[in-house]
């Protein structure tokens, strides 16, 4: 194989610089560490933050999995994988348990992560306070002073207006009783997986030039009230139309022919694995 660029695209100095920012992020869970985000061969907003983290960490022995909105084969996941393979030649996998580094856009896999694995989440908007404060200078102060009443008020107003917290994905979470963090737009369903995760979770925002982290066994609580608890998306009694799984995040799919709605596992590799097990057993 002919590799035209340096191993993992960047020169070693650039990788080291990203790792330094990452170490700081691990040392201060939930704190957004600025870094000199480079322009990448994929577009800003298409996972350049996650990609830079992955490239700075990846070694020849690593096994990589990339998913986009739950799917290993979605266009963007394929594209990112292609670039990493081209510049490193490392092995890739669809299986969650086999991977050492998992780069993901907006999902945490259904199969629980293990100690030693690294989950890299792509983040479009790292600032959880941006909804009510457009200025970066101001949000930096709010974090420094641990002044989060705006975040609580936002949820309170939602409850007053709609009778429920109307956050979709990206429901803000408190990291280790200190920083409020945008969990990247993972669905609320995945928020609890951040809490006391065995794997290291790194979050990278390329366009916004920030890195932050949830180190293993860190307390992560989704913001909620004592008398109004946090709720994940509910799929009631629905199950996956392919593998029959329940209690997983499901995609709602409209059948063109019958006009009926059915559900399927959003985590495609999880679904496939279950189907394979079934046919083997």
């Amino acid at each position, binding site marked *: 194989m002919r590799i035209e660029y340096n191993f993992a695209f960047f020169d070693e100095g650039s990788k080291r610089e990203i790792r330094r920012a990452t170490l700081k992020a691990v040392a201060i869970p939930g704190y957004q560490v600025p870094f000199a985000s480079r322009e990448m061969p994929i577009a*800003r907003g298409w996972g350049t933050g996650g990609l830079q983290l992955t490239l700075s960490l990846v070694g020849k022995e690593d096994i990589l999995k990339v998913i986009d909105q739950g*799917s290993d*084969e979605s*266009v963007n996941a394929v594209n990112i994988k292609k670039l990493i393979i081209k510049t490193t030649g490392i092995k890739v996998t669809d299986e969650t348990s086999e991977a050492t580094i998992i780069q993901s856009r907006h999902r945490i896999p259904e199969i629980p992560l293990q100690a030693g694995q690294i989950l890299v989440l792509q983040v479009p908007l790292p600032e959880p306070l941006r909804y009510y404060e457009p200025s970066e*200078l101001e949000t930096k102060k709010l974090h420094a002073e641990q002044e989060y009443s705006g975040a609580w008020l936002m949820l309170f107003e939602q409850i007053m207006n*709609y009778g429920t917290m109307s956050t979709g994905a990206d429901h803000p979470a408190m990291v280790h009783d200190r920083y409020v963090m945008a969990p990247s737009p993972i669905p609320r369903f995945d928020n609890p997986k951040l809490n006391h995760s065995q794997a290291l979770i790194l979050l990278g925002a390329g366009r916004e030039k920030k890195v932050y982290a949830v180190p293993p066994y860190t307390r992560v609580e989704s913001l909620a009230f004592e008398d109004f608890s946090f709720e994940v*998306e509910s799929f009631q009694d629905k199950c996956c139309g392919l593998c029959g799984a329940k209690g997983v995040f499901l995609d709602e799919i409209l059948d063109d022919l019958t006009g009926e709605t059915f559900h399927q596992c959003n985590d495609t590799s999880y679904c496939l694995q279950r189907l394979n097990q079934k046919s083997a057993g």
Partner: protein
Amino acid sequence: MGYVAVKGGIQAIEESIKRLKYERLKKGTVLDSQQIEGGMRCLIDQVMSESSLYCETLTAMAIKQAEGSPEEAVFLLRAYRSTLPRKHYSRTVQSEEMLVERRISSSFKEIPGGQILGAAMDYTHRLIDFDLNKETDDEAIKWVCEYALESGVDNDQTNLSNLPKTLDYLREEGLISTCEINYDEPDDVTKESLHFPTSRSQRLQILTRGQTGAVTSLGYAALRSYGALHPTVGELRIGNLPIYVDSPFLEQNEDGDAYYIGEIKVTEVETLFPEEIQKGNGEKEIEFDIGYGICYGQNETKAIAMSILDRCLEAANPEYPIHNEEFVLLHIDSVESTGFISHLKLPHYVTFQSKLDSVRKTKK
């Protein structure tokens, strides 16, 4: 099942990339990137400026690959730039040393060294020249030779590499306050991300690599209504600046030790803004403030708009969005804005499903 079928994504992408190549080549002609370099000077200048990479040959290749899309060409060059280690820093460039090709001032009819129109589209009628359709290489070469002979006759003795700055005249009269030269090491926005409030060096770097259209539009907004500034162009000059780097082998570099590594063409603009000055005794005076614009190549609109934005960000009047540094600096980068806008084409069905769940709950 759309573009996220459980399997088959890889193949679909390969086919899409093939289709793209087909679109580029289907008319049966291959564009020579030397032709782009020869005939698309303005596009090359614009792309180099937005890319922060000065190389006409590479830019021509990027434009070819991007099928002429400036945002795509800038994207290619910026990504390439990321792989280049920074080996040297140049010496500070003094813009007085520019070998001037064009230089105008709208503040004074006569300026020391004179007005030099140089090459500009300003004085043409925007009528499509249908004869260009029949232009041949032979004719072009003949014309260029004739032109060279004709302009060689010119016996003008003006030293074009050391023209005085128009603004120096106003400075001598005390109409512009003099300022000390700032010897601080400039911040480098490509090595450390912006932090607010920004330094002027950070602002100028972000403005000069800003997307031409974005810089122009925001500059126009400041000019037309949001602040309603009306600056006067003190001086606009275009020409080549020599670049020197210190010898890496010497501990101490004297003046003569630097290496000349080439020259870059730039557009430089200094605009004047009348500003009220409070005197100690309650009296007021009016002085001129300066806005500064500079960019690679010949791109006069962008450089002038940049000088307006530079002034706006210095004034930082909280009444106007164009005076807000976060509003301006975080939104004018071509790669960032086009990247984030285009990411909306990515699948969002997890996030959408999550929102759908909330919306359904509010309906209960």
